[in-house]
């Protein structure tokens, strides 16, 4: 992203305090930009109201492509391109094709899903992490608000929210 954002964020030192703070923020209808945690916190998604991830759809679609590719390719070879009888089996021995079909289903599904994951998250080698605070990957839990277009009194409201919900530090940074 070319234009940087001005971010006001609070750091909490415990995940339970974080969850409570998020609930308070949602009650006050505050527009949370993002929440950063050092590990997947249990109950964070419902508290934030995040819709369930749909990455499994990608897994299914890629798996299907893998299965069709494998079965189709092997069938085309053995029926049409170069039919050979192996050990008296028919030209199209479906049972013999199952192991490779299975393997390619898994392979396509896994590789496809991982690529989709990195793409939609915008992650990859060479991506510079927009780190608000290095302790977020250690033991700090962070709620961030985008304050680029905010009035001073709105900012003060957020400040107050952080203080009331037990944030141990409040900082501002542009990323």
């Amino acid at each position, binding site marked *: 992203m070319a234009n940087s954002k001005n971010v006001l964020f609070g750091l909490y030192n415990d995940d339970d305090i974080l969850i409570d703070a998020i609930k308070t923020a949602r009650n006050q209808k505050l527009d949370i930009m993002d929440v950063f945690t050092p590990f997947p916190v249990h109950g964070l998604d419902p508290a934030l109201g995040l819709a369930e*991830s749909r990455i499994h759809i990608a897994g299914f679609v890629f798996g299907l492509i893998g299965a069709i590719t494998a079965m189709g390719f092997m069938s085309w070879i053995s029926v049409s391109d170069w039919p050979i009888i192996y050990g008296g089996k028919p030209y199209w021995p479906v049972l013999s094709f199952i192991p490779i079909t299975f393997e390619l289903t898994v392979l396509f599904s896994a590789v496809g899903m991982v690529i989709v994951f990195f793409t939609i998250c915008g992650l990859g080698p060479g991506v510079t992490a927009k780190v608000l605070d290095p302790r977020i990957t250690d033991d700090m839990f962070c709620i961030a608000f985008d304050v680029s277009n905010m009035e001073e009194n709105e900012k003060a409201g957020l400040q107050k929210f952080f203080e009331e919900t037990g944030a141990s530090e409040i900082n501002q940074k542009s990323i």
Partner: protein
Amino acid sequence: MGSIISPIREPLVTGNKTYNQITEDICAPTERAPSISWVIAFSVANVLAAVFLFTSAWTIWQGVGTWDLNRTIGWGWDITNFVWWIGIGHAGTLISAILLLFRQKWRTGVNRAAEAMTIFAVAVAGQFPLIHMGRAWFAFFVFPYPNTRGPLWVNFNSPLLWDVFAISTYATVSVLFWYVGLIPDLATVRDRARGFRKKIYGIFSFGWTGSAKHWQRWESLSLILAGLATPLVLSVHTIVSFDFATSVIPGWHTTIFPPYFVAGAIFSGFAMVQTLMIITRYVLKLQDYITIAHIESMNKVILLTGTMVGVAYLTEVFVAWYSGYIYEQFAFYNRAFGPYWFAYFAMMTCNLVSPQIFWFKKMRRNLYVTFIMSIFVNIGMWYERFVIIATTLARDYLPSSWSLYSPTWVEIGIFIGSIGVFFTLFLIFVRVAPVVAIAEIKHILKSSGDQYLEKQKEYVQKQQFSEKN
């Protein structure tokens, strides 16, 4: 995290850890200068890896004739080593995938190292079919690609080709699974590092920030990858067993092979995890994360799978007798009383008899016993493959073609060297990446950390006390 855990459960993280301490403890080995013991171990592993390079190069240069294989015994130490290493490469994915699906929290302490071990073992295993081809530079012939020979395709009916697909898929999926899990932890190392190190870890952590949505997708991805890897890990050794089971050799042509191979693979894989983790936890001072409870759990798996393998051995013998088929009967008579009887008894003792010691809790929780046992199992499982492969081939249908086989120095060098390659890779890994999954340990801290369990216990006792009065 309000997940309720029975207070009688053993803690999986000990020593009153805070989130920060977990980061400190686990990142420390990657940040300090290597210890003397690491340097010595690494040098030895390097020398052995050099032996591997030399003996493989010798094989490729001179030809497979430098091995003692002959027309009767076409597979010897090479395929024995291949199956052995592939088997060892089963524990990692089993621990991370199947135990994730079963929600076994103790997996978090050992999954990272076990997965790394899997990848290295599979990488080593892959070398054996390659050099066994003789003309290794034509190895790409195994893949179906449009070629100028017709195009003449590979034989999709052959279990050997299924193996190519199974092992390449397994290697790829294991690497993906491992690396996706590693990214948040590499980000942790990145945020602690300075200068050049920060740059390197910045590249390898893919710009991870720990955003809530990313974590959600990450968890979802891990779960589905686990769901995919579970049947995959079972399929890999099933297909390896097909290499034997679809043949017409007595002693190989049995339907029991797939489950028996899978159980054996898990058995040997866990043994290798024990061998490595007992040393690693001590050298890297990770006893608070890889506790005796973890070791005991793995010993239970070893006991179970060892007994399954043992039952399979006895079933084979019984079925050979019960079938009334003399060739099958002879194959098993030959295994136990033929020229390679010692291999059969080594296999029986190490795999069936010795794991029974783990019925005793004291033994399961004893580090020395566990370590010695893990070595026993490694040896026993190697002998199992030798018994299945070389012993069976040495005495086939026609006595006129009976033969004997003993490895040459080249084959011995390749085997010993392959252990060196494996340890070289593992020792590099413990230096550059967190050996224990940091984020996952933090995730279970509030449900399985000792201080939280203690609180839970006090709470339950108070509750019971007030109910009584």
